């Protein structure tokens, strides 16, 4: 049995981005009883970020003596962009085996305004699979969720004879006729 695990955990300030391109080549001698590769990429944002992206491009070629080689490809991506800070855990899991149960999945646990949401995309792997989990304001996956897409920082100062106000507002908007 061959088992490989790739795990990457990143935590940073305002934005996270991890893009991994992986090529796996296996040449199995005749009589190998079993073949399994599990690939897992994980990104945890615990510091209130505005953007997080995790992407893996995996190409696997399996060659056996006396048989045509088999190439399987998985392109999986998860990204989140929001106008207010969020916490998130994103994961890409890919399971390759000789049997017909090879699978790929993208998962995200997303905490926004004190509420936690979970998202999942999964598929079996034939020759190639593409899984994209995109989370941003007004995206179809957020329909029906009560999310506030405006974030404002204000900084007022006043006295008897003056008033000052500073503000910074980030706001997600939609053009007329948008979804």
């Amino acid at each position, binding site marked *: 049995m061959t088992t490989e695990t790739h795990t990457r955990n990143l935590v940073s300030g305002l934005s996270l981005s991890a893009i991994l391109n992986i090529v796996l080549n296996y040449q199995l001698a005749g009589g190998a009883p079993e073949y399994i590769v599990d690939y897992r990429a994980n990104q945890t944002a615990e510091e209130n970020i505005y953007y997080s992206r995790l992407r893996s491009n995996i190409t696997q070629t399996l060659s056996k003596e006396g048989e045509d080689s088999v190439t399987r490809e998985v392109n999986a991506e998860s990204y989140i962009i929001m106008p207010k800070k969020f916490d998130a855990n994103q994961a890409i899991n890919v399971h390759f085996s000789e049997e017909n149960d090879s699978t790929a999945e993208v998962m995200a646990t997303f905490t926004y305004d004190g509420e936690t949401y979970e998202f999942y995309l999964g598929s079996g792997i034939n020759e190639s699979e593409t899984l994209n989990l995109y989370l*941003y304001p007004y*995206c179809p996956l957020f329909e029906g969720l009560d999310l506030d897409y405006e974030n404002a920082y204000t*900084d007022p100062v006043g*006295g008897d004879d*003056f008033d000052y*106000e*500073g503000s910074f*507002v980030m*706001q997600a908007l939609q053009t007329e006729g948008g979804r």
Partner: protein
Amino acid sequence: MILRGSGLAIKALLFLFISYVYVFSGSSTVSISCNYYNDDGELSEDVSVENAGFAGNVVILPYEVQGFSIFSEGKGQTADVHSNSELSHKISATSGETTNELQVDLKSENARYSWENKGTVSPDQADLSCTSQGTISPGDSGGESELSEASSRLQATSLGKTITAESALRASPATTAVASVEWGLGAKLGTHESMLNQYTSIRSHPGYLTFPTSQQVGFITTGMTLEGQYAENGTPLFTKRYVPVPKDEEHPEGFGFPLTLGVMKVEDDSVYMENKLKMSMKWQEGDVETTGDGE
């Protein structure tokens, strides 16, 4: 009747003599200083431009007509947006015990700005007003820099207080493909109340979303500050203000200064993000503080 008619004729003649227009621009620095006064008050201007144009006109009357006896207005703008451009303008107006003063410095490269100002003097007013707007333009390989850069500094002294507002912006050449960027400032200085404001607006094109990131990977970096002090003794009105609000002892939940944005394409072509930075200040005449804190 004859005497009165002669008086009007003389006054009309005076009007014709002291109303004039001036226009200048240049790639090298060009400057002009003017001083206008009559029995009601005084208005002074110092203008300096580099790779920018400026035009103005001044009317001086021997008496108040339609609310003024001295009136000045001017307009300036960048000439070649891909070269370094600077406009510096100082204008002051005095009537009786009231003196208002504006000083603006605008700079840009691969960006454009415009500038307008007005000054009005009458027996009971010494009003000044100004507005400025700007946008960025992509750099080309022929210039010294491909970055778009712009900065402004506006200082207003009025009603016993001096307010200084500054802003700066730096954008990569690719910014205009994914976002529109505008900024501006304005001020109105009067005899009872004065105000000042500045803003920067960064709006992504539909189908792109912005997100705060580090300066190393961002498209656009911007921020603005404002300081206020009593003109008589320099005592601060409050601690220096920033937008976005920095993280410090006063603002433990602050955003962080300056703002740097990244931009990313998303699936939905109808969504976009707007980032608005604003500062506004309004003030009146007040007692001079000695403690130095109005918060």
